C-alpha cells in the first residue's frame, strides 16, 4: 500500500496543492472523473477551513482497503481554536466567516464517510473516506 502523503496548509496556495494531491491520488487509485472532482472539492473545502480558522494545519491523503475494496482517506488536522458546537457547523447554511456555510456539510455530502472531532482550544481532526465503486 502506498505511503500517506502530507500537504501542509499555510496559505491559500496550499489549498490548491492539497486538492491537487488528493485528485492525483484518487486518479492513481482508479477513481472516475466525477469522484475525482468530488474528492478534490471536499479537500478544497476542508483545507480552506483549516486556513481560515486555524491558520495552519495538515491534509494527509492515503490509500485504504477494506474487505477487498479500495478507497481514499483524507485526514485534516489543525491545532486551531476548535469548534464549540460541531452539530451546528454541520448544518447547511451555517457560516461564521466569508464562506457560504457549505464547507463542512458540503464536504460530508461529497464523501462516503465523514468523522469530525474537535476540542475547543486544542484543534480539529476531520477524517473522511471515499470508496471506489
Amino acid at each position, binding site marked *: 500500500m502506498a505511503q500517506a502523503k502530507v500537504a501542509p496548509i499555510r*496559505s*491559500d*496556495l*496550499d*489549498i*490548491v*496543492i492539497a*486538492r*491537487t494531491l488528493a*485528485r492525483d491520488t484518487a486518479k492513481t487509485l482508479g477513481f472516475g*472523473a*466525477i469522484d*475525482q*472532482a*468530488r474528492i*478534490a*472539492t471536499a479537500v*478544497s*473545502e476542508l483545507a*480552506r477551513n483549516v486556513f481560515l480558522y486555524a491558520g495552519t494545519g495538515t491534509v494527509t491523503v492515503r490509500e485504504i482497503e477494506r474487505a477487498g475494496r479500495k478507497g481514499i482517506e483524507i485526514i485534516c488536522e489543525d491545532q486551531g481554536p476548535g469548534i464549540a458546537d460541531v452539530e451546528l457547523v454541520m448544518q*447547511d447554511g451555517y457560516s461564521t466567516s466569508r*464562506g*457560504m456555510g*457549505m*464547507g463542512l*456539510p*458540503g464536504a460530508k*455530502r*461529497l464523501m462516503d464517510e465523514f468523522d469530525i472531532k474537535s476540542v475547543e482550544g486544542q484543534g480539529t481532526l476531520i477524517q473522511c473516506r471515499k470508496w471506489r465503486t
Partner: protein
Amino acid sequence: MNTYSSTAMHTAPECVVYYADTCAVFLRYHRTVSAWTNWLWLPIISSYGVILTSSRAERTLGPGLVSGDEEVSLESLRIPILKIGDVLIASIQVALHDASAVQFKDDLLQKIYDTKARGLIVDLTAVDVVDSFIGRLISDIASMAGLMGTKVVITGLQPAVAITLVELGLELTGVMTALNLEKGLAMLRRQAGEGADGTG
C-alpha cells in the same frame, strides 16, 4: 511553483562574483610572477565559473523567478480578459487560488467599467474544481456585473463540476449559463436583439 528558497540564493551570486573577480585578479598577478601557480588557481576559478554562469542566468531572470515566491505566482496566474465587439471573454485555464480569484473578480469589474462591455462570458471549460469559494465568487461576479448593467454568462461547465456543485449545495441560481463559448455568445447576442426590439 511552490518551492521556497532561502534568501541565501539572492545574496550568494554577489559573493560568488566578488570571489571570482578576486580570483581573476590573483590569476593575472600570478601569471606575471610565476607560471607554475596557474594550475593551483585554474580549478578553483573554473569551479566558481560554473556557479558564476548559473548565478548570472538567475539574475537575468530576476530574483523573483528564482525564488518562486507567491507574489510571482500571483502575477503569472492573472487571467487575460479579451474583448470581442462589446463582449468580454475570460477563460480560466489555471487552478485558481483564493487571492488570484479575488484579483480576477476585481480585474473583470474594472475591465467592464473601462470598456463599457454589454456582456461578459466566463469560460470554465478548463476548470476541474469549483468549490464553495469559487462558486460564491462566480455568483458575486454575476450580481456585481449585473448591477453595472452587464450580463454575465458562465460557459463550459464540465459534467463533474456541475454534479459536484449541486451536491455541494451550490446551484448558482440567478447566473446565466451556456453549454459552450459559442452558445454563450449567441445567448448574449439574442438578448441584445430582444433589448433593441423592446426599446426600438
